[in-house]
C-alpha cells in the first residue's frame, strides 16, 4: 500500500542517458521537488538532446496519479511522438504538435496509483531529438 506522505516519495531526477543509452540526446535533468500544500505532487524538468526542455509533473488525485508531460522546443508546428510508460509498460502513446504561441505541447493523462512505487516515464521524439522524463512516485 502506497503512502501519500510527500517525505516518503521516491523522487528521481533521471539522467536518462545511462538508462536508455541516449547519451547524446539528453543533456541534463534537474532534481525533482515536492510542492507544498495538501496534494502530493512531484515535478521533474530536464533538457532534451537538442535544446528543447521537458517537464514531467505527477500528482495524486482520488486514488489516481495525474501525469502531465510537457516539451518546450520554442518552435511551433513540430509534431512530436510521445509515449507514457507506467511501471515499464506503455499506458498511452500519441502525437502532439507544438503550438504557435509557446512552441510547446502538453500531454495530460491519469493513471492508477498502484501499490508500491509507481515509475512514470514520459518519452517524446521529434526529428532525431529525444526527451525522456522519469518520476518514481
Amino acid at each position, binding site marked *: 500500500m502506497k503512502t501519500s506522505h510527500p517525505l516518503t516519495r521516491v523522487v528521481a531526477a533521471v539522467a536518462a542517458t545511462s538508462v536508455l543509452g541516449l547519451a547524446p540526446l539528453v543533456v541534463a535533468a534537474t532534481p525533482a521537488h515536492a510542492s507544498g500544500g495538501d496534494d502530493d505532487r512531484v515535478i521533474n524538468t530536464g533538457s532534451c538532446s537538442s535544446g528543447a526542455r521537458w517537464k514531467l509533473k505527477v500528482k495524486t488525485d482520488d486514488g489516481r496519479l495525474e501525469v502531465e508531460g510537457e516539451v518546450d522546443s520554442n518552435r511551433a508546428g513540430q509534431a512530436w511522438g510521445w509515449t507514457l510508460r507506467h*511501471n515499464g*509498460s*506503455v*499506458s498511452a502513446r500519441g502525437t502532439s504538435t507544438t503550438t504557435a504561441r509557446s512552441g510547446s505541447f502538453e500531454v495530460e493523462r491519469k493513471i*492508477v*496509483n498502484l501499490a508500491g512505487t509507481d515509475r512514470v516515464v514520459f518519452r517524446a521524439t521529434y526529428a532525431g531529438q529525444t526527451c525522456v522524463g522519469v518520476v518514481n512516485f
Partner: protein
Amino acid sequence: MRWLTNPVVQFLAAGFVALVIVVLATSALSRDAADEEAIHDARELTKVLGRSVAQPAVPRGLIDGKASAIDRMDWHVLDRLLVGDVRRIKIWAADGTVLYSDQTELIGAVYPLDEEELDALRSGGTDAEISDLSKPENRFERELGGDLLEVYTRITSPEGEPLLFEAYFASDQIQQQREEVLDRFLPISLGSLIGLMLLTTPLVLLLTRRLARAAREREGLLQAAVRSSDAERLRIARDLHDGVVQDLAGSSYALSTVAARPAVDAGVRDELDGVGRSLRTSMRSLRSLLVEIYPPDLHTGGLAAALHDVVAPLSAAGVVVDVDVSGGETAGDGAVALVWRVAQEGVRNVARHASATRVSLTVHREDALLVLEIVDDGRGFDTAVVPPEDHFGLRTLEGLVRESGGALEVESAPGEGTTLRMEVPVG
C-alpha cells in the same frame, strides 16, 4: 363495557385486527418480494455489466497485473461500470488477486475466494449475497455506509482466463424497491379490506337490529304466553273455587246436617260421615290444587308465605324443609313471580326425583339480584345424561329467566344431591 358485547363493535374490532394483520403480512411479503426483485435486478445488471461492458474492455496484460492494462481499464470502462446503484466493482483472478477495482488500493492484493465465488468462477453462474464488511477485502466498502449487496459473475480475459467480476450495490435500492412494492400492494390490500368492511358494516348493523327485534318479539311472545297462561289458570281456579269447591262444601255441610238428625240410623250415619270426610278430603285436595294452579297474591300474602305453601307437600311427605326468605319486599312483581315459579318447579322436581330427606330453600338479595337457591341431599343426577323431558319445566323457565336478564343453573352429581340457583334482576 356493555358496548363490547355489541355485535357491530365486535365486527369492527375484528375488522381492525384483520386490517393490522393484513398490513403486517403485506409488509413482510412486499419486503420479501422487493428483496427478491432487487436481487434479481442486481444479478441481471451485473451480468450485463460483466459480459457487455467489462469483458470486452479487459485489456491484455490485466491478468498479469500490467500497470498499462490497469490504466486502460480505468480510463475506458470505469464510468460505464459505476452506473445506477453500483457503488464498487472488483475484478478477481482465480487465485484471489484483485486485478482491478475502482478502489485502487485493492489492486494487486490477494484475498482467497470463498467456495461460492469459486463456484461462480467455475460454473459461470451468478451469485448474490449481503456483503460481509468485516472481511479485509471489503474494508473500503464500510465507508460507503449501510448494507451492500455484492453480486459476482464470471467473465473471460482476452487470454482466455476466467475472471470474477464483482459489483456492489447500495441497499438504498433494496429499500426503495421495498417501498415501491409496498406502495403498489398496500393500497390494494387495504382498499379492498376497508371497502369490504364499509359494505358489510351496514349489513351487520341491519342484521343485528333484526336479531334484536326478533329477540324482543320472542320475549314479548313469552310474556304474552305467561300472561295468557296466568289468565287461564286464574279462570280455572276461579271456576273450581266458585263452582266445584262451593258445591262440595255445600254437599259436605248438607251431609253433616243429615247425618246429625236423630232419626238417622247409626249405620247410615257412619256411612254419611264417611262420605262427608271423603268430600272434605277432596275439598282440601282441590284447594291445594288451586294454590298450585294459580299463585296467591305474592305481594299481599308475602313471598315467604307463598313459598311455605309450595314446600308444604314436601313437609307433609316427611322431608325436613328449611325456608329462609328475605329481600323480596322491594323486588318487582316480575322478579317475585319468577322466584315463585322456579321454586315451584324446583320443589316439584325434588318431590318427584330426589328422594331427599332434607331440603333448603332460600331467597336473598345480592346487590341488584334476587337469588333463589334450592339445595337437597337427594340422589342427584348426572347433568350430562339427564333426558331432556325430565327437566322440561325448568328448561322452559330457564328461557324465561334469561329473557328477564337473569340466569338459572343446576348443579348435581349422582349421590351428591342437587343445587338449583337462580338469579334475577330485582327491577
